[in-house]
Each structure stands twice: as structure tokens, then as C-alpha cells.
């Protein structure tokens, strides 16, 4: 029953973030920074996951964003799966889970995931890609805080 609830919350969160990514992400640019709702979902959910869960979460996260954007699925799946594995691994190490800490984790997750993606599929202009990544990391860090707070309320009774 617990596993079912966690699975449903994870799936619904990924779905909602996919819809927001498709419909709203490009409208919400602030000073050139654009949110990546799928990375926000990965960061906020990954905090609750173990290593296997983190990998599966990263896999589906990469699959969804790759499918929606029409970009290469291999690159997105690989980069997000590695990121999910790392998130699951760090979650098992009793990292602090205060709201600001989750914001920092989301920002670091964004930078890490995009750097892995950059190595797998080098962009045309690495400089502007890195600048976009850093701006997006700050944005995602801020967005991850309320998402995590909501998820904590939903998942607290079943996950630690």
C-alpha cells in the first residue's frame, strides 16, 4: 500500500511537471533563466528515493523530457539516470533535508544533469549552454523548495 502511494505520487508529479514543461516553461523566463520542471521533479522526488528508486526516477524523467522535446532519448535517459542514481545515493547518506538544503540540492542536480548531457551531446555553443544551465539551476533551486514542501506533506507518513 505504501509503495503504491509513493509510486502514484511519483508518477503524478512527473506527469504534472511534464505538462508544465511543455506548456509553461518557455513563458516563465526571468532574466534569461528558464525553469526545467522535469529537473525540479527529479530533484524534489530524488530526495525521497533510494539508489534503485533514484535510477528508475531518472530513467523515466529522461524518457519523458526526451520524448516531449523530440531530442535524442539516449542522451536524456543516460544523463537523468546517472543523476537519479547520484541523488538516491546521497539521499541514503543522511544529507540535511531542510527547505534551503533541498533548493541547493536541486541547483546542484540541475548543473550535474546538464553537464552530463553536455558531455553526451555537446551543444553548439558551450558558453551559452553553461550560462543557461547556471541561470536555470538557480531558478530550479527556488522552484524545488515549494515542490519539496508539498511532496513532504504527501509522503511524510510513508517515507521516513
Amino acid at each position, binding site marked *: 500500500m505504501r509503495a503504491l502511494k509513493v509510486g502514484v505520487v511519483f508518477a503524478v508529479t512527473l506527469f504534472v511537471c511534464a505538462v508544465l514543461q511543455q506548456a509553461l516553461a518557455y513563458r516563465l523566463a526571468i532574466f534569461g533563466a528558464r525553469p526545467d520542471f522535469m529537473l525540479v521533479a527529479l530533484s524534489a522526488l530524488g530526495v525521497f528515493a533510494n539508489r534503485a528508486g533514484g535510477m528508475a526516477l531518472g530513467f523515466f524523467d529522461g524518457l519523458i523530457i526526451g520524448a516531449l522535446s523530440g531530442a535524442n532519448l*539516449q542522451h536524456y535517459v543516460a544523463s537523468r539516470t546517472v543523476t537519479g542514481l547520484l541523488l538516491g545515493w546521497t539521499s541514503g547518506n543522511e544529507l540535511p533535508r531542510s527547505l534551503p538544503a533541498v533548493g541547493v540540492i536541486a541547483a546542484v542536480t540541475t548543473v550535474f544533469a546538464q553537464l552530463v548531457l553536455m558531455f553526451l551531446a555537446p551543444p553548439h555553443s558551450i558558453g551559452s549552454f553553461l550560462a543557461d544551465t547556471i541561470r536555470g539551476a538557480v531558478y530550479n533551486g527556488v522552484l524545488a523548495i515549494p515542490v519539496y514542501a508539498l511532496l513532504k506533506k504527501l509522503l511524510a507518513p510513508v517515507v521516513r
Partner: protein
Amino acid sequence: MLFIGLIAIGYVLGAAQTRARQDGRVDSVSRLIQRLAEPPAVLVTHMANSTSNFFDGISHAGALKRENAMLRAQAAAAADYAQQVQLRQGEIDGLLKLDRFKSLPGKTAVPAEVTGAFLYDNRITLDVGSNDGIQPGMPVISGRGLLALIQTVEPGHSEALLIVSPVTQIWAVAARNPPPAGLLRGEGPGSLYVDFLDPNAIVDIRDEIVTSGLSTRIPPNIPVGRVLRIEENLDYGRKRALVFPWASLGAAREVFVLK
């Protein structure tokens, strides 16, 4: 083991995606995910448009009030024949500008809405597909000029690559007589380059770049952008121009697909 398994599945799915794309279609996994996400995404897009319009109305209330007062004054002066003519002429000009792409000879303009944009990948999704007669390679036009080219098509929607994508290459000419032709390709957000066939081509800064018509799908003389800089390499006999694109995603919500 799980990690290796997931990466392997990703590799297989990616290979299937590449094969499908080479055939001008979307692979089944991507199609399933897109079909699940598209209806709520379209709904959210419409809600966002309505909300944006609502707040635009509030934030521009002062300007709207002034405009309203001005229109009232104009209405009161309706008897003034010259003013009426000027007003009607302005309306006609606006409609002609909007309508110029609908009347391209041999082409039908299919109105479409941008339902998603992925700027990292220079890709947009449109709410028209093969049910509307859309096919890969068709040009996507905004009010300002050429915006993108259709890449993959599904019955109810399609994906298009922006012309600023480094993957996109089309023939273009500078609007001169004679018009020097070159290969236009993207260089990422906000910039395009034209590599001219003739290194001695006469091109200047501020020249207008338009489509060449060398492609059967893309009609000639669709505005693409304006030359910002000329780069000449005498050693290699090469001449290229940096072009500022007219059509940008920020300005385009409603577009036409020319079929």
C-alpha cells in the same frame, strides 16, 4: 545491473527514435508520452494565454483608458471624411500585412498554434498534423517571416525545428538584383549565417535575406532576416553573412504552416 539495464533500454529506445525520425515520423514511445501530455498541455496553454491577457489588461489599463478616450473622440469626429479615409486605410494596411502569407501562389496557409517550445533543442510543437495535410519539410511562418521547418508529423500535432537550429539548412538569397544565393544555417539562439556560393557576391550590411524558392516546399521571398555583419576569408575564397532573424519564438504564438 539495474543501472546497466536502464541505460541499455534508453539506448534501444533512442535507436528506435532515430529510425522513426529518418522515416519522418515519431517513435511509438515518444508518441505515447506526447499523446498523454498534449491534452492537458494545450489546456494549460489556453489558461496561460487567458491569464496573460487578463493581467495585460490590468497592467495596461491606463493606456487602454487613453486609447478609449481617443477612440471616442474619433467617433465624435466621424463626420470628418478625411479622418475616416485615413482610419480605413490604416486598417487595410494592417490586414494586408497580416494576410500576405495566406495568398502565396500555389500554397495554402494552415493556421496553427505553438503548443510547446523547447529552446535548448530549437524545437516547437504545433497543434496541426497530418489530419490537416501537414508533411515534414513544410515551412512554418510567423507574421514576421520564416520561423521553422516541420520535422515530424503526427495526426493531431507536429514538431518543427527552428531555422536558428544548427541542424537546419535552407537556400536563401539577399534581396538584390541580381540576388546572390547562399546556404542559410542556424548558429543557435538569435543568429543565422549565410554562406554565399560566390565569394565575390555583392552583399552589404542591412541587406534583407529572403528564401530563394530553390526548394519545392519553401516559396521564394519569405523574409528571413537582415544582414548584420559580412565575413570574408580571401585565403579560402569564402564569404558569409551573419543574419539577424526576423521571426522569433517570443513573438510567435499563432503561425501558419504553408502546404
